[in-house]
């Protein structure tokens, strides 16, 4: 059950991220193309052709975002592991200090 929730959580993050990434990338792409072609932007025309654009570029967007997402997940998990290791080391050193203090005081 925990594993299912874990996978669902990552999937929801992936979908939300993908929509945000695609929207920003698409708007940037249209603006850059308009600047290069020295044309005005017609948002209604772009919305009308949205399906064509999705079919033409969707795969590239999906591929780029998937790679980015897995890099981010990998980096965040590595960062988490590093923090947990640091905390464990600190805890160990505190435990060692405490045990040394106990020995000096003759409590053992």
């Amino acid at each position: 059950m925990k594993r299912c929730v874990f996978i669902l959580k990552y999937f929801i993050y992936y979908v939300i991220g993908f929509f945000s990434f695609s929207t920003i990338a698409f708007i940037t792409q249209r603006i850059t193309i308009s600047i290069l072609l020295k044309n005005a932007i017609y948002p209604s025309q772009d919305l009308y052709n949205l399906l064509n654009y999705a079919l033409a570029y969707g795969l590239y967007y999906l591929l780029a975002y998937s790679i980015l997402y897995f890099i981010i997940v990998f980096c965040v998990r590595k960062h988490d592991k590093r923090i947990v290791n640091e905390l464990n080391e600190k805890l160990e050193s505190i435990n060692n200090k405490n045990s040394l203090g106990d020995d000096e005081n003759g409590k053992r």
Partner: protein
Amino acid sequence: MGKDKVVILVIVTIVFSAILFGILMAYKTYYSPMKVYDSIDETVDMLKNANENEHFRMEMLSMFNNLSRSRKMKDYKTGEVRKFTKEEMNEFYTAIGGKEAIIKYLSNIEDKEKQREELEYACYDLKIITSDELANIEK
């Protein structure tokens, strides 16, 4: 680094990557070879014989503008790609008669209704004249 900072960093990374990717895709589209649905030879013949009809000449100038970005043509069916030299591109442009020929044609249309239609077609659909040029011709 706290959890909030990690979240902010992830969002910033996604936003910047999306902007960068959008710019890259725009350049890729802009400089990609022009796709042709007829064979490349047929399209080259069309470009070389563009001066037969004034309306056709406008369409060919639009095609020439698309071709001039990468100077490459790609056959949609066979996948063959052909790159054109500067001399060949000049030959096409001369055959079409250049933008001057189009402006001359558009300026000399006597029927105002037809002129309006042709101007809008050239400006908004084919994008071979700017809106300033459209306004100048309409005066």
